[in-house]
């Protein structure tokens, strides 16, 4: 079990593995994140993997590769992937790759609330 990775924290909630990623995702950081997340997936075999992107300050196409790789792995193991609360910058690159067409993306509650008020 991964106990310490500065780039994410996690919690296990019933059949879901929730991973909150922090800071910058680029080719450099994606290497260690990928290895540690995969170790947890193989150990927990979650029905749902949730990647919380609300505290990602930067992500380039290495992050897209990271997400697609986890999507493929979780699907292979019979689970699903959800992306939660991507920031504006992350949403832009996810949209460029058409990610919302294949992976469920849950927007931040704050944004929904703001829209309702308007």
């Amino acid at each position, binding site marked *: 079990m991964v106990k310490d990775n500065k780039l994410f924290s996690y919690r296990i909630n019933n059949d879901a593995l929730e991973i909150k990623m922090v800071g910058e995702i680029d080719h450099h950081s994606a290497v260690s994140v990928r290895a540690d997340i995969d170790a947890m997936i193989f150990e927990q075999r979650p029905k749902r993997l949730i990647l919380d992107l609300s505290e990602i300050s930067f992500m380039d*196409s290495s992050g897209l*590769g990271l997400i697609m790789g986890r999507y493929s792995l979780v699907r292979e193991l019979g689970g699903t992937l959800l992306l939660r609360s991507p920031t504006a910058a992350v949403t832009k690159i996810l949209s460029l790759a058409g990610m919302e067409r294949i992976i469920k993306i849950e927007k931040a509650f704050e944004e929904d609330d703001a829209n309702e008020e308007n």
Partner: protein
Amino acid sequence: MKRTEMCGRVINSIKLTLPSYSVNEGIARGAVSAFCAQLDPTAAELGDIKCALSEAVTNCIVHAYRDTIGDIYISVDLLEGSVVRIKVKDRGCGIEDVKCARMPLYTTDRAGERSGMGFTVMESFTDSMRVSSSKGKGTTVTLYKKIEGR
């Protein structure tokens, strides 16, 4: 973007040479962001520049210097009319087919989980992109971005 805007007088510039260690991706972004701050860009504009630069630098590390460490030459010019010109150059293996490489989802590195979106991101997040490459000699990517500012 108008062609004349890409040929404006150089007002300020920086040059960086970094070895192709992956840790330098973030260092390159930090240095170029600091330089661009003089134009008071919006968060979105700065985010676009950081992302495009990161793709160019990562390409040098992952592809140009795949099995070795080499120097990455970055120059950033502030041109008249609030245009930023970023050149990222390597002396690596070169790109065999630039037209193919620029296509979305094209990658030669499936094992490394590359998304194949690097050039697409660079092209989408800037106003203009030029790529020149020579097999065995290296590649130069030139990016232009007009900063409207806050």
